[in-house]
């Protein structure tokens, strides 16, 4: 690995030059090539295969979710800087004329838009909890879901591993503290073995979410003190600061309390999730094995393509 060229900008330029990603004029929003998508499809199949013995229920939510659900989830308390809400024009003809006029004169026309009921999904599991709560008491053995969604986070960057719109695949376990901890433990082991089978260097480390502000520092310290978040890190755009490609999160009874997720006896449920950052894993594979997927090591191709 050449440490000198191991930086975000160089990797992004090389992805553009090799026709793997395509510029759109906005940092963090890129077109993907067929090869890039094929890698993601193959990796998703691998994840599903590894999780198959657990018999998860698969749900695919769209990348937009109920704004009311996002509000109730507490996302704005922790990550107001990352959230995105969809706004649309809801005026009449008179306002439309003003809008066109403002656009023509370079004024800020967006003030003529109003917030819709849709927010962009920030993590694949946010729409899940109210869906589960609506089904009534959680069975004693807990419930397990496999989710996949495009997610949005407002953090424009020229680091290709920090996109604004990206896909996340997740397994979410809702059950007792013991059940969800065992679930997380099993994926800490399985996740590391999976990434090693793709011949990528990786480490698992204690982590924290990017909570907002000084209060967020405290939330982050609390999260670390309690060992609530682990990440699997792969060097993608930096050796010193490797990229979190998988994350393993224990929410305690946060979502149980928020959404009233309970067992039949009234006991609150705990939850945990393991998330796979699909673009990040694909970028790691391209970074370490080269732009030509046909030329990737035979062992890696065997795991992904079953060759």
């Amino acid at each position: 690995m050449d440490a000198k060229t191991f930086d975000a900008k160089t990797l992004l330029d090389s992805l553009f030059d090799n026709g793997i990603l395509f510029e759109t004029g906005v940092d963090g929003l890129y077109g993907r090539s067929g090869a890039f998508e094929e890698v993601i499809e193959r990796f998703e199949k691998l994840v599903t295969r590894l999780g198959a013995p657990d018999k998860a229920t698969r749900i695919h939510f769209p990348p937009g979710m109920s704004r009311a659900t996002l509000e109730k989830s507490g996302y704005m308390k922790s990550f107001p800087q990352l959230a995105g809400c969809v706004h649309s024009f809801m005026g009449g003809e008179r306002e439309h004329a003003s809008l066109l006029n403002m656009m023509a004169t370079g004024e800020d026309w967006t003030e003529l838009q109003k917030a819709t009921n849709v927010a962009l999904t920030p993590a694949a599991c946010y729409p899940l909890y109210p869906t589960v709560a609506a089904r009534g008491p959680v069975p004693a053995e807990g419930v397990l879901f496999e989710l996949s969604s495009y997610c949005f986070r407002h953090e424009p960057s020229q680091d290709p591993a920090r996109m604004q719109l990206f896909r996340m695949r997740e397994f979410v376990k809702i059950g007792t503290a013991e059940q969800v901890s065992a679930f997380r433990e099993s994926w800490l082991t399985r996740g590391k073995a999976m990434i090693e089978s793709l011949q990528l260097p990786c480490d698992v480390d204690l982590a924290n979410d990017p909570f907002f502000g000084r209060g967020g520092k405290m939330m982050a310290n609390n999260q670390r003190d309690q060992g609530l978040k682990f990440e699997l890190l792969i060097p993608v755009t930096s050796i010193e600061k490797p990229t979190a490609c998988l994350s393993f999160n224990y929410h305690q009874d946060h979502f149980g309390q928020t959404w009233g997720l309970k067992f039949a006896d009234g006991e609150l449920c705990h939850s945990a999730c393991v998330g796979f950052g699909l673009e990040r894993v694909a970028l790691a594979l391209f970074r370490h094995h080269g732009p030509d997927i046909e030329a990737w090591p035979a062992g890696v191709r065997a795991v992904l393509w079953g060759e």
Partner: protein
Amino acid sequence: MIDRIRTLLSGHPMIPLDFSALSDDANLYDAGLTSFASVQMMLALEEEFDVEFPEAMLTRRTFASLANIAEAVSQITRKAA
């Protein structure tokens, strides 16, 4: 100092704990203090005592009991004096 803290926190709408029933050393997290409520507590204390907690003090332990909070606040005010 502890009484002043107790009164301040008792009146806070976003910290739903019954401070009158908690001893100075009672663990506030065991009593149901959430991470988010502990942040609200930190901000309320900074305003009341006109201090700023340094990053190293923004830990679970600092806000774990009324006695710990009082100790932390007096440490900061001593340093500032």
